[in-house]
């Protein structure tokens, strides 16, 4: 199965990237833009067709490597590959 994982900074954690992008969007004339936050997007394929087991595996990957859970949250969706 294929997982689409998004990793975002926890609410309240400073997001310098998001802040800078927001400023650049304003300067480009997108004046109404607000609340810009940047995160990571990771696609992963696992050789696992059972959604529950695939989910468990993705979660372990996120916890162990993909996200730094001190400052980041993660979420994911599974597709049948």
């Amino acid at each position, binding site marked *: 199965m294929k997982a689409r994982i998004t990793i975002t900074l926890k609410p309240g954690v400073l997001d*310098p*990237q998001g802040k*800078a*992008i927001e*400023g*650049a969007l304003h*300067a*480009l004339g997108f004046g109404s833009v607000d609340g810009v936050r*940047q995160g990571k997007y990771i696609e992963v394929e696992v050789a696992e067709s059972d959604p529950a087991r695939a989910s468990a595996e993705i979660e372990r990957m996120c916890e162990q490597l993909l996200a730094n859970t001190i400052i980041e949250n993660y979420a994911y969706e599974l597709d049948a590959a």
Partner: protein
Amino acid sequence: MKASVIVFPGSNCDRDAAVVLKSVMGHAPAMVWHGDSELPKSDLIVLPGGFSYGDYLRSGAMAAHSPVMREVVSRARAGTPVLGICNGFQVLTEAGLLPGVLMRNATLRFICKDVLLKVERNDTGFARHYQEGEVVRFPVANKDGSYFADDATLDRLEGENRVAFRYCDASGAVTADANTNGSCRNIAGIYNKTGTVLGLMPHPERLADAALSGTDGTKMFASLVEAIH
């Protein structure tokens, strides 16, 4: 000769470029703040290295939209020589003045060290003091220095003789080992069609002073002074 160095928020090689320009021109260049839409009359425009806007999002992306860049683009199109070093090269590609993009180094790490470059042509205002095929030493200092373009673009660049420098070994051989950042076809710098816009990742301004253990970079600035006069 009048030169302008564009200063973006986060530029950090602006002073280094200015010091070298002053030493070859005999007078200081104008330092132009990115927010200015006015650009003084310039015979040469330098986009210096650094981390414009922190290189957040993509290196050079936000700077490419600075107010002053509109003017830089139109001067470049009108033939004013433009030199983009490191972050300046990234800005030039993001602004569409040069093709391709600078991606994360193959090692994924920032790399700061001297590299050897093969001078691919010397018939431009930037390179007339070099020999064609000469091996020169410039430092690199970047994380996003891996030049990428699709094959058609690369073929076109080569067909139009627009590659300025390639990473090479001491004998001038263009090898995979010498390609520190994983650039397509070992490309370290490219020209626009007319040879008046040069973007390169290595820093000629960093070895343009005998006290810094090398002067290969001086020739680029001296070439420009001669070409512009």
